[in-house]
């Protein structure tokens, strides 16, 4: 475990990626503060507006994850490739902000025609995580994540949070 704030933040972001890739929703929520706020946002040049596609607090997110198995959603897993671009730890070392670029790929499982498409990967979403953290006890804890995406075409399979 790192003692350096910047490294703690990077560890937290990459661990979150692993958790989300593996759909370990509870493990990801455990990385987040009780007051955690999550959102997916995008700017649409088509309509000239900043948009919010999803906005949930910690409890709502927990509820959302609880409902996932009850939905008939697409089975194709989403996975991300992320690179932490910047980390700013405040002077007293208690809070931090980070910007992480990510690409999300979809591994086709429920294909358009499953026997044909299954096994193929394609790019699904492009965006940046804008994260905020509390740093405490040698750990960076998420207090806010805005997944700001550059994708307005969201085909079937969009129900898994980014």
């Amino acid at each position, binding site marked *: 475990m790192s003692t350096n704030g910047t490294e703690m933040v990077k560890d937290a972001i990459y661990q979150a990626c692993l958790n989300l890739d593996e759909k370990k929703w509870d493990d990801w929520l455990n990385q987040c503060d009780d007051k955690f706020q999550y959102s*997916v946002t*995008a700017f*649409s*040049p*088509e*309509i*000239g*507006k900043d*948009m*919010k*596609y*999803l*906005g949930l607090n910690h409890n709502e997110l927990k509820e*959302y994850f609880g*409902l996932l198995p*009850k*939905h*008939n*959603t*697409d089975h194709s897993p989403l996975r991300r490739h992320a690179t932490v671009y910047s980390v700013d730890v405040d002077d007293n070392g208690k809070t931090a902000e980070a910007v992480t670029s990510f690409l999300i790929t979809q591994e086709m499982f*429920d294909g*358009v*025609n*499953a026997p044909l498409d299954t096994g193929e990967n394609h790019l699904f979403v492009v965006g940046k995580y804008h994260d905020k953290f509390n740093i405490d006890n040698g750990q960076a804890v998420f207090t806010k994540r805005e997944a700001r995406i550059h994708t*307005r*075409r*969201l*085909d*079937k*399979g*969009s*129900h898994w*949070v980014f």
Partner: protein
Amino acid sequence: MPARNQEQWEKKPDLKLGEWVDSRIYSDEEIFEDELRNIWKKAWIPLMHESELPEPFDFRTAIIAREPVIVVRGPDNKIRAFLNVCPHRGMAVDRRPAGSFLTGEPSGNAKHMTCMFHGWQFDMNGNCVEIPRENAGYQGRVTKEGQGLRRLRCETKYGGIVWVCLDDKVDCDVEGWTGGCLDCIKDSLDEEPLEIFHYHKAIIDCNYKLWHDTNSEFYHDYMHYHNRITGFDDGYFARKCAAFDNGHVNVGTFTVNYGEYEVADDRGDLTFPHLPPNNWYMVDMFPGVNINLRGSAVRMDLMTPLSANKVMIEFRGLGLKSDTQETRERRIHHHNTIWGPFGRNLHEDLVGIAGQGVTMMPNSEPRRILQGRHEGLYIHDEVGMRHFYETWGKWMDRLPSDPSKKYEPGLVVGPEMPPAKGISSFPGKVAAE
């Protein structure tokens, strides 16, 4: 009945004409081309909302039946539509989805639409105002006066929706086109200006009508967790379908006490003007539009058919222009809960039609698709689809249950019956929980 052999499987169903369709209407490329020509080019299409081009000189582009369209707001604030086709050598006059002509193109002037290719320029009325070295090249044979853009009929109507029709000869205006299907929400849409807050799209490998069917039949609510668990009460089954001229249908709450039919939630105070609290109307307009007013937000889906088995669906969400920031955020939250890309229903609907697309690829073998439920026109009655395909048959001069034959009337309206009683359990509920 046990699984059927080939002959049994291919047999026509023991239903009336009009209670089923042939899957070739969803997969045949020749039929698709006929649809573009006979239907999409003759319908009024609600392309966008006027708040997508809020300022003079703003523009937005779109497609109807493969024809590129540009919609612009003039200095007089009037919205006009043109074919987005340069009369010179056919480049798109503008190639962006949206923008402003207040700034000029590198090869043209501000406040003009400039075709960047050879610099022909047009004003916001579509007049040609510049042909570089006009006389030197054309010696009066081609002049600005004769080279305006192709203007299209365009009306801004029903809460600021921008409607465009490609065919000048269509003998109705937008109001006539709706046939009254929007009357149920007209006052709510028109009381004060609306503003768009949501846009996203999906492109699905299936015929556009499959999305329209999904919007018009509610029997598929079994697919949706929320509806499965909380939705099927008396009030739900009291919603009724109504059919209108030109193939339009709406579904809404007509007979129940509005206060009781849906558990009051915190959106009551954000309900649109003139709408009983938490009330809900869904309007399915021929040939591929859905306008849905559910308490605090409007959803509008527009289908753009791309080929027999490909459709672009654009999803818009609208609130009131006068919203405070806090009010707007609550509306967005309500909208997203159901209709956003992470909402509880939309993703399942997309998975449903993608699965239909798999079985109805072009040249796949014809099958029978049933639309024969009769429930006294209440919500699970499939009259919406039957009405749509009756109109479709007329416009196409094809029989929906055998599109190689000519149209003959076959609309079936089932017997009167009372609404179903709410149900507390159904097969699958336990498994789902």
